[in-house]
């Protein structure tokens, strides 16, 4: 079960199904906080027509599992799911989903916000933006 709670996949995800999976952990869950990152049409003033994500297979999954385990250890949460998509993503589509579940809402809010910040900091995933001037890896343009 914990495997399917942390995934990197090409396909889209369902917040509904992921929340249902998370809720299976306990009837004591009173709060679910979800973060969905979506592909915006503008980034730092540049018009974006699409995104392409690359990840380090093996390491990216490992880092996401680490984040879930550390969230469970450091926050008063009951369960957490993390899904990140890879490959081509169109504008408006979802990129990443984090669901944190707890008895009381503060814990789920804190854990969810921490997890997405930690994901951006520690997970080897790279985004390439398609713009009018061509495809650009995001960290090439600081």
């Amino acid at each position: 079960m914990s495997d399917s709670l942390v995934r990197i996949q090409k396909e889209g995800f369902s917040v509904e199904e992921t929340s249902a999976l998370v809720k299976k952990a306990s009837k004591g869950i009173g709060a679910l906080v979800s973060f969905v990152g979506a592909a915006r049409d503008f980034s730092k003033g540049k018009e974006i027509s699409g995104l392409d994500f690359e990840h380090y297979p093996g390491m990216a999954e490992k880092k996401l599992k680490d984040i879930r385990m550390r969230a469970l250890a450091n926050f008063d949460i009951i369960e957490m799911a993390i899904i990140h998509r890879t490959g081509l993503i169109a504008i408006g589509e979802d990129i990443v989903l984090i669901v944190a579940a707890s008895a009381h809402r503060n814990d789920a809010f804190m854990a969810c916000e921490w997890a997405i910040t930690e994901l951006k900091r520690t997970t080897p995933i790279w985004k390439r933006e398609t713009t009018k001037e061509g495809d650009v890896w995001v960290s090439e343009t600081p």
Partner: protein
Amino acid sequence: MITVRFFAMLRNKTGCEFKEYRILKPITVAELKKMLKADFPALSGMLDSRSLLISVNLEFAGMDTMIKDGDEVGLLPPFSGG
């Protein structure tokens, strides 16, 4: 044999996905960086930059982390997931 993997814009700079090196004894990350600079001059700036992280066997590594035969090294430019 050790395998060095290049990701994202690094792959654009090297023109390849990975590079293999035969090593006779364990080397440090710092030593590997010297070898990479010699083979891929286009990576010199990045290899000197603090924003480039190195992984050894899927874990973050430091300059003095030892790399031994069979290890996989990742050259990781700044992440932009999420």
